[in-house]
């Protein structure tokens, strides 16, 4: 009886130690693998001081920050509704626009953000950004967005270089997405899309879903 009891105790203690070990390893791994680093490769258009976002028209004012996740349906709706006007603003150099492709929806958001960053190196970010939303799969992480699809999507907006292909296939900017995550966290961005004009968020109840009000908000910041 005594021996079987101590055997049971041994099993119990072993289980406790194992669970403790798994939890500790999990915690350490989670913290390390989600850390940002200034050593990660970043696209040329990325500015560390702008939350590691992709910067268009760096010297223009006002500043518009756009936080999206390429798999987020509300971001797709926003892009299809207001993206045309925003892209006009960008094309006419009327504002500094910083895109922050977030990746909290999962692996395919990371692939898409990487491809978008690769397109920035080809100076085709705006087109790729639109194409990604236009071709957003129904459902999250369905397996529809792989590197081949994303390269084909790049081709469809005129990015045909071998460099782009390699950038997508190598996942060159996958680690950079961690910097975006950490920086958007610091700025307390907890949903997408989030648009800030000179650091001030648009009104979630009205200004996202109404093109006239979106224009008015930009106009109030001096974009005519």
């Amino acid at each position, binding site marked *: 009886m005594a021996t079987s*009891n101590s055997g*049971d*105790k041994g*099993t*119990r203690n072993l*289980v*406790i130690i194992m*669970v*403790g070990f*798994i*939890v500790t390893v*999990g*915690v350490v791994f*989670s*913290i390390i693998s*989600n850390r940002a680093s200034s050593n990660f490769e970043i696209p040329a258009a990325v500015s560390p001081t702008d939350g590691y976002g992709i910067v268009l028209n760096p010297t223009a004012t006002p500043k518009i920050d756009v936080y999206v996740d390429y798999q987020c349906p509300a971001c797709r709706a926003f892009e299809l509704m207001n993206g045309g006007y925003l892209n006009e603003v960008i094309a006419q150099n009327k504002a500094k626009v910083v895109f922050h492709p*977030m*990746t*909290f*929806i*999962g692996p395919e958001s990371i692939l898409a953000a990487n491809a978008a960053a690769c397109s920035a190196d080809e100076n085709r970010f705006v087109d790729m950004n639109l194409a990604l939303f236009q071709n957003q799969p129904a459902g999250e992480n369905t397996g529809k967005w792989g590197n081949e699809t994303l390269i084909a999507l790049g081709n469809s907006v005129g990015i045909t270089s071998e460099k782009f292909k390699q950038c997508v296939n190598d996942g060159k900017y996958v680690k950079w997405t961690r910097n975006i*995550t*950490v920086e958007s*966290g*610091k700025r*307390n961005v*907890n*949903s997408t899309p989030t648009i800030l004009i000179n650091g001030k968020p648009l009104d*979630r109840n009205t200004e996202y879903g109404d093109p006239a009000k979106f224009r008015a908000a930009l106009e109030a910041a001096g974009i005519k």
Partner: protein
Amino acid sequence: MRDKFVLVQPWLTLLARLILGGVLIVAGALKVGNLQKSAMAVRAYEMLPIWLANLFGYVLPWIEIGIGSLLVVGALVKINGLLGALIMLAFIIAIAQAWARGLSIDCGCFGGGGSIDPEDTKYLSEIIRDIGLLGLGVFLYFYPKGRFALDK
């Protein structure tokens, strides 16, 4: 009546362990696959400084899995019952303060989380569920000895 309880209690303890432990394991496992979202969910409560909220977001899912696993196998039931109850109490306070302050968030209890439309909030049902789970944890603290447990 007393005799009957003595007879039934070890089974009730087993049931409480399996429910509370099972819920914690599922809740942790669903979050562990997407820790960015987990951190975002904690931030959205706007209770903690951002660095601490992020840390919680990364650590909490593993803690849930750890406590849940030990409850299911029946190791350190008294302590883990108490810890489970304390976690639920923290969740209840967090959800209640979000509700009272008029935030519109998903509790992020089983993955998900972050800001949502005001009409999509479910604070009351989330709080009721967590009160139930809190009750199970308290029960386990007072009656940790049950069937099929590693604790002897």
